[in-house]
């Protein structure tokens, strides 16, 4: 054999390759660039903490989105879903009266449960009714948004519970609560994806659904789970967002789906599914934040921020295809 290597030698490590770490390299390069451009303000703790807080709302959603995209699916409805879950949570909380601590608990649980429910609805449309993910979630994106506007009668849904705002604006060990939630959920989903059976099945279904079916994997259930998890992460994000201002405006969180998908793509998860990285998504989300922050510090018009984001997405995808 000209291929002299053999598994018999017991090698089970891939040789190190820079190509496997393009996201990390990109992240470090961008960080360095931002440090130079934004010197010295960028590196100030206050600035970095604000940056992390800003990215954590969409970042948390992007974690679930990573799993959906790995499984070969897609979800456009997460922004509407966040507003809807947040609104319903505040409704639930208010129904227990002002400043009720039971109401506080119920509000939090409602946000999580309702998000999970809406995500599951998306998943069922895709798996049971066999609607293409793009179409199904385009539909629910519209439905969820419309319903929250209807319930709010086009005004703000304001919380009567002053304790609620502590969650969104609180700090633990110097870091905002949303940032903690972002990192903790990322760690949990990273382990879920790489170290559990279901995580492996999600990759298998996304890589080749037929092979997964022939391998006795419950394909429908496996495709449903990422939507349900995303619903949960949307619920978490909705809770954090609504508690920050202690109210929800029905137009809140519009465009979150694009930021979430951008974070996933920049993080190196291919849109074709089958593989991907939760940690990559965390880096991707933070990179989006760095770009915004850098442009602000450099005094670039905020109208150009979206253009910069677009360029980064395209460059990230180009780098992936070069592999």
């Amino acid at each position, binding site marked *: *054999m*000209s291929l002299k290597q053999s598994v018999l030698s017991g090698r089970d490590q891939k040789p190190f390759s820079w190509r496997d770490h393009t996201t990390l390299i990109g992240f470090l390069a961008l960080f360095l660039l931002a440090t130079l451009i934004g010197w010295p303000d960028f590196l100030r703790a206050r600035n970095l903490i604000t940056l992390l807080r800003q990215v954590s709302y969409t970042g948390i959603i992007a974690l679930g989105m990573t799993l959906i995209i790995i499984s070969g699916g897609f979800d456009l409805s997460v922004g509407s879903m966040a507003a809807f879950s947040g609104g319903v949570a505040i409704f639930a909380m208010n129904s227990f009266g002002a400043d009720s601590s039971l109401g506080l608990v119920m509000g939090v649980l409602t946000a999580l449960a309702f998000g999970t429910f809406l995500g599951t609805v998306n998943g069922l449309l895709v798996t049971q009714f066999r609607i293409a993910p793009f179409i199904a979630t385009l539909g629910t994106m519209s439905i969820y948004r419309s319903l929250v506007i209807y319930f709010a009668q086009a005004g703000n849904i304001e919380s009567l519970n002053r304790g609620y705002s502590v969650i969104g604006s609180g700090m633990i060990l110097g870091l905002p609560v949303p940032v903690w939630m972002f990192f903790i959920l990322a760690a949990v989903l990273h382990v879920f994806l790489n170290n559990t059976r279901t995580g492996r099945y999600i990759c298998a279904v996304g890589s080749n659904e037929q*092979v997964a*079916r022939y391998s006795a*994997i419950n394909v429908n259930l496996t495709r449903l789970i990422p939507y349900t998890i995303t619903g949960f992460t949307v619920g978490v994000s909705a809770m954090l967002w609504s508690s920050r201002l202690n109210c929800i405006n029905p137009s809140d969180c519009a465009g979150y789906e694009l930021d979430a998908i951008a974070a996933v793509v920049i993080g190196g998860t291919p849109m074709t599914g089958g593989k991907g990285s939760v940690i990559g998504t965390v880096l991707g989300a933070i990179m989006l934040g760095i770009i915004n922050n850098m442009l602000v510090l450099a005094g670039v018009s905020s109208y150009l921020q979206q253009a910069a984001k677009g360029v980064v997405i395209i460059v990230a995808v180009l780098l992936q295809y070069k592999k």
Partner: protein
Amino acid sequence: MPGKPILEIQNLSKDFSGVTVLDKVSLSLREGEILGLIGENGAGKSTLIKIINGIHLPSGGKLLLEGNEITVKDPQNAKKLGIGMVPQEFNLVDSLRVFENIFLGSELKSGGFLDKGAMRQKSREHLDRLETRISVDARISALSVAEKQMVEVAKAIIHEAKVLVFDEPTTTLTQYEINILFDLMRRLRDQGVTLVFVSHKLKEVKALCDRVAVLRDGILVGVEEIDQVDEQKMARMMVGRELSLLFPPKRPPAIGPAVLEVRGLTVPGKLHGVGLTLKKGEILGLAGLVGAGRTELAEAVMGLRLPEKGSILLNGDEVEINNPRTAVEKRLGYISEDRQGRGIHLSFDVMANTTLMSLKRYAAPFLDKKAIREKTKEYSEAFHTRAPSLRAELQYLSGGNQQKVYLSKLMDINPEILILDEPTRGVDINAKSEIYQFIHQLAEKGLSLVVISSELEEIIGLCTRVYVLREGKVTGELTGEHINEEEIMFYATGVKVMEQV
């Protein structure tokens, strides 16, 4: 009758990221000959023909076409130079018509619009030249595998092909279709076209070719006139050593109890009241032409297709198998004929593939990666799987090694009954022999096996009992000396029919 050289390959080399897969190969193709190109998987056959067709660029050496040095940039360019290829996996668009496929990428135009009339006309002429009666307006999806291949041939010769490469063209064909193809190839040769026949089937090479070139480890080890070699010699040249017998000695007929019994199984349009029994420790063959319902039968047993009628009994008890999970729980395993489309994940590494079906055992609830590695290593050693590492993705392994990983994957669910559908398709002779040995060992250990194969040699060499299927029905059951090519073909083609009790 040695013709003048048409395509000269001089000192051609190719390496992929530092690994040499083709090492200074020099070979001269003559006008109007059929040259067999053989070698084990990974010997460099595919690389060589891909360079000739412009899919890969060579790292060194040159190509001369009729004495002039050429650079083949891409397959379209190759076609224009007169070098065509009939690929192993067809590149046809199912939803388009025959003539549209034939001219795909080389569309004829008049005044900026497609000239469908001319394309129909030319396609008709090419298909006539190949003496087939396929309609130029038929949709590809309506054609049989053999007809699709004819379309591929027609597509390859639209620019007056001088050299035409066939990459393992007979893998998915029945014997009847193979004969038609060979007639076609001989006719093209007599018209002065040079044909390259890449194959694993030495018998076919011997029957069809004028010369044979043998590659081993990227080196051309010899080019021989076909009457100077026999199958043994070709095999020795390929492997570089004496080959042990391809098939292990046959096992005595199984006399144990029936472990699997299928009664009156009906899948609309595919199977009509099929019945069979499988005994413990038996190697049972399922023969028949492509499309006879063999794969459908296996899939119905595995819960991958829901039968309309009929029953399945395991160890005498009727069972209901509605999905593959139940089948695996009942310790049934199925190796699909479509390795890359249904069997393994090309983007997964050796470990992830091997343990995918048995993953429950390694999850507590977190995956025990050490146990996964140990187990995978065990299988790799037992099967002599060659891979750069256990972390290598399957897309970088040869067909034979992919198949070994696929077998490992199924072995890891500890099946009692294993159905192997074309277990050696696209696998080189060395790996083939290893797989046969392995099937025997399993039977010896008491597993019951069903072997589905279009290669009669395989059925005859392995099985102690054979069912022949035709058009979704069991038409014959053969044992002992009745298991021979003639008998099987009689039942498979409907010359003989046996009434089932």
